[in-house]
């Protein structure tokens, strides 16, 4: 017969916990903080990955100078780091003219405007570039660049700098926040502003390849040629076909042909080139980041462990004070396992309260900081229900709380057996 039902043990546990509310509250807080931390880490991990993966879509190959595939992916798509080398326009032409190529987007990097990178490209970029799940770039206002000195701004560039259409802007040579030589003899005009994409496109200033050539026409080896200055108007009349570009994106007629094209580009005889499949390069990037991910996870697990330890300490500290309580319970007919159950129940209740608190903390933080994170880091954090993975983590935490509760429970069990009905002083 199990007359002492689970309900009355839970009832006793709740009253006992309320009796020590300060210590209990602190234990709950420790667990809540650890739960919200582990959820935040998981969320950032998943959303950073998703954000990265959403930056490029429908591109079959990325081609650049021979270096590492992750490096190529980072500088061509994410505007992180720099290219080691350029590739010649002639190579680009010969590859983009292949029969299996549906479209190509040349990319020329190396200049900046007030901390935002400037990318030279063609109008094909606005037609063929896809992000997210095959979404096209859309203009919030204006038009794609037409003139040599037209620029199309990413949403964040326009928002951050407060630029409007037709505004004039000077492009700096090199990448950084100033202190660089400026191409101030050839100002650009804001021709269009893109809608927000949640990708590095938002932080990019797009100009035509001709524009890139134009601002460097009187430059050599990264510096203006002394005594030589060609005005903007004079430049317009020159041949502005670039001699080299940084990288290019390829869309193939058939996705199945990607491997064949990849092999052929990598064996391109006239110049050492590197072609990568975006998905494969992303995977390599994940592999690179997995160490950091593991470290972050390990830290969150340690924090959760700390939360459980805090609770265990509280339960153990009270054990001795509660010997009489246990003896009374035994005297009125409680079985040793009821006494043990009391401690396990308390541990579970504290953990459940901690989980609920942690989830509240996490979602409150998510709502509060989501716009800020998007603004500052360009990382769009979606507010979603906990995933199966998250629920598994909570399940492990609950299991951990049972284990933590079992320690004082076993001790109380033994104590109540050896104390008998009367606690001798």
């Amino acid at each position, binding site marked *: *017969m199990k*007359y*002492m039902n689970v309900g009355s043990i839970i009832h006793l546990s709740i009253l006992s916990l309320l009796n020590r509310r300060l210590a209990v509250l602190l234990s709950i807080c420790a667990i809540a903080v650890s739960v919200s931390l582990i959820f935040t880490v998981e969320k950032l991990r998943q959303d950073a990955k998703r954000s990265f993966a959403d930056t490029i879509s429908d591109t079959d190959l990325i081609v650049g100078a021979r270096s590492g595939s992750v490096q190529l992916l980072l500088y061509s798509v994410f505007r992180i780091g720099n290219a080691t080398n350029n590739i010649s326009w002639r190579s680009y032409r010969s590859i983009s003219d292949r029969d299996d190529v549906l479209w190509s987007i040349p990319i020329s990097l190396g200049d900046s405007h007030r901390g935002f990178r400037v990318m030279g490209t063609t109008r094909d970029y606005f037609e063929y570039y896809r992000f997210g799940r095959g979404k096209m770039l859309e203009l919030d206002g204006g038009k794609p660049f037409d003139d040599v000195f037209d620029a199309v701004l990413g949403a964040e560039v326009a928002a951050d700098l407060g630029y409007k259409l037709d505004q004039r802007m000077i492009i700096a040579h090199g990448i950084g926040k100033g202190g660089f030589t400026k191409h101030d003899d050839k100002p650009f005009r804001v021709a269009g502003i893109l809608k927000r994409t949640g990708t590095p496109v938002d932080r990019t200033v797009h100009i035509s390849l001709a524009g890139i050539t134009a601002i460097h026409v009187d430059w050599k080896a990264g510096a203006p040629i002394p005594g030589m200055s060609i005005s903007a108007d004079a430049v317009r009349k020159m041949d502005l076909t670039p001699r080299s570009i940084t990288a290019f994106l390829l869309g193939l007629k058939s996705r199945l042909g990607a491997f064949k094209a990849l092999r052929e580009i990598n064996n391109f005889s006239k110049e050492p080139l590197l072609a990568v499949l975006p998905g494969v390069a992303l995977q390599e990037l994940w592999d690179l980041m997995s160490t950091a991910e593991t470290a972050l996870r390990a830290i969150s697990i340690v924090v959760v462990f700390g939360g459980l330890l805090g609770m265990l300490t509280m339960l153990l500290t009270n054990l001795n004070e509660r010997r009489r*309580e246990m003896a*009374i319970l035994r005297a*009125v*007919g409680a079985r*040793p396992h009821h006494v043990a159950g009391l401690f396990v129940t308390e541990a579970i209740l504290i953990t459940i309260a901690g989980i609920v608190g942690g989830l509240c903390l996490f979602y409150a933080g998510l709502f509060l900081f989501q716009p800020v994170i998007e603004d500052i880091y360009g990382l769009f954090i979606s507010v979603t229900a906990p995933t199966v993975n998250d629920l598994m983590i909570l399940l492990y935490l609950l299991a951990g709380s049972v284990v933590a509760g079992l320690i004082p429970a076993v001790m109380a069990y033994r104590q109540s057996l050896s104390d008998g009905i*009367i606690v001798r002083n």
Partner: protein
Amino acid sequence: MIEICDIRFRWDSEAPVVLNIPSFQILAGELVFLEGPSGSGKTTLLNLLSGMVLPEQGSVSVNGEIITRLTDGARDRFRADHIGVMFQMFNLIPYLSPLANVTLPCSFSSRRSTMAAKNGGSLASEASRLLTRMQLDDVATINSPAYQLSIGQQQRVAAARSLIGSPELIIVDEPTSALDNEACQMFIKLLFEEVKKAEMTLIFISHDTRLAEYFDRRISLVDINQIA
């Protein structure tokens, strides 16, 4: 009511024998005063009678049941159903209200729960009836934890708890040692009234021999315990 037959007890096999009682009986309805100097094994006897520990040999039967033959679980259940226990002090679960303390045994025994409900209409009304009988009318309605009560009040709440659901046997261990003379007299008077009314058997362990005169029988543990 209680029949002890040839028991020997020690806390572990190395320790000296604490109890060696060849034969000892208590009749149903008897009010027994059990005395003995400290260290004479009173507490051990209490543990044996309530089925918390088992003797090395011999048998203990309570209310017709040979409890030394029962399993651990069955003994715990037997105690819950048939024995009301009360200690020297610190009888109450500190975080429960006085009323919840009184009804506590009913969470562990359906028999006492049923009995209590039958006696008083409901668990709570039986508990407040007992508290009122213990002259604690004002305490019955208090919803704050029991540790705020005075020691005398706590002992009377504990008495009400041991009485609820009419267990056949009440064992009290020096319940009056923390009380002054007046409170002590009142306590015994109230306890006796309820015990007699419900025809319970009472074992009152104490070293305060002045109280012995109120009881049916006075037993010295030194006389029945034949150690050494």
